[in-house]
């Protein structure tokens, strides 16, 4: 059953740059998909359109039954509540503790304190940071900061977790840790779409891989197919 369906999606920026064209793609519920390609191939534009930071110039993007491309700016929050997003630069609040950073995503919805506490602890447990809840981001290592960002992204129980180069700033061992956390989340039923430059990680994980080039899907590798690729 598909969670994401892109049909003939095209994105042309105001500058005239064609970032994505003739893009047709279906991602099913529970999948773990890597999106790879050289710089400027359109992979970042693709995921920005998924969480509706960008609007496609033409075509259709359906996410969990909602036509994202037609969503008005004032209604974007409706789709954002169903997805989690993780970035290369973590995007944490420096003046808030780990606990507060994760709780932040629930507080704005007015959830009771007890429920917030329960869910924050559960989320931090899942990423292995329960004992660091009182620390501030600058007291944590890069990998730990990224795990806080993941804990925040999954706290609302999203159907989809979008990861934009989450290991871009991390060393190999830490990257492995992050990937194992993501795999764990995926096993619990969350669909994951991850953009990365790191081909080694992609090979090791044996997941579906979408190779993009010049704004199109160059090749769509099924699970296990990419391991032997030399590109």
């Amino acid at each position: 059953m598909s969670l994401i369906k892109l049909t003939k999606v095209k994105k042309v920026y105001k500058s005239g740059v064609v970032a994505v064209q003739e893009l047709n793609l279906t991602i099913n519920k529970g999948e773990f998909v890597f999106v790879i390609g050289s710089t400027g191939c359109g992979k970042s534009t693709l995921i920005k359109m998924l969480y509706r930071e960008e609007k496609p110039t033409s075509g259709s993007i359906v996410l969990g039954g909602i036509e994202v491309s037609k969503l008005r700016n004032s209604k974007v929050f409706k789709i954002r509540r169903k997805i989690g997003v993780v970035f290369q630069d973590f995007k944490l609040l420096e003046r808030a503790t780990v606990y507060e950073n994760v709780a932040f995503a629930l507080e704005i919805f007015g959830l009771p304190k007890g429920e917030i506490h329960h869910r924050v602890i559960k989320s931090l447990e899942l990423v292995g940071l329960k004992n660091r809840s009182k620390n501030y981001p600058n007291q944590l290592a890069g990998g730990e900061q990224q795990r806080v960002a993941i804990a925040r992204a999954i706290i609302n129980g999203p159907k989809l977790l979008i990861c934009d180069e989450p290991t871009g700033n991390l060393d190999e061992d830490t990257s492995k840790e992050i990937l194992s956390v993501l795999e764990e989340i995926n096993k619990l039923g969350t669909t994951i779409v991850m953009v990365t430059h790191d081909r080694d990680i992609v090979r090791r994980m044996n997941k579906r891989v979408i190779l993009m080039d010049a704004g199109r899907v160059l090749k769509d590798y099924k699970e296990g197919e990419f391991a032997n690729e030399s590109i």
Partner: protein
Amino acid sequence: MKAFRIIGRNIRDSFKSVFRNFALSLASVSSITITLIVVAISLVLTYNVNHTAEIMADNIEIVVFLEKGITEEGIASVDEQILSLENLETHIYKSKSEIAEEYMGESEVFAAIMATWDEEENPLQDTFIVKVSDTNLISDTADEITEIEGVVAVNYGKGMVEQLLGFFEIIKNGSILAVGALILVTAFLISNTIKITIFSRRKEIDIMRLVGASNINIKIPFILEGLFLGIIGAIIPIGLTIYGYYRLYDFDLSAIMPILELVPPTPFVYLISGILLAIGVGVGTFGSWRAVRKHLKI
């Protein structure tokens, strides 16, 4: 319950933000405070000038002097014609002997001199004291009375009354203009404070958007922050108004400005305080709403 928790969180965040950007908040609060002090002074001045003007208007009289040796019939005829005036509120007749008696009661010197006059020698004139319903038309009414047969002259302080009323009008309009300009400047200053707050909290706003906060969710704390700045800024002017006006009322002003009649402090000071608070809240909210609308394009 959920709505209360969201409102509670917004209020807490807005309050925190006021103190987080302390220097900026202080600038805005000081500006509101100064503006509201000027507003308070202007309001107190305008209300009191109006009050005094109303009292004066109530007391303006036209003294109508009748011909020397006018007959009873002549007086009755003048009386009838005054009665037919459109702008008439009240009128009473005072004979020269009644006036002489009044004067004699007021001063011993007068009394001594007047005691030597008999009815024939009394140099005073029989008069009518006329009060008009619209003081702005007093000049026309006085002219009409002059035309009546048996009237030799009228007196109502021509020129002086018009000048005084004109002066009061200038004070009133000048105050409104100054207050308006100051309110506008303050609104822009608050707008600027909120703009800087928005920029300093860009990251937080981005994260809020990412985790699915609605536009209202994001905007309300900033608007509340402006509102709080307005309320904080109104505290000192309100205190000063209440304390200052009671002191002013107790102080004997009649020696300096004998014509000024102060409005009694209760409930006047509370009315002024309410207006100040409303202006503070209004200016604060408007300023922050403007900044949010302009700089928080989400």
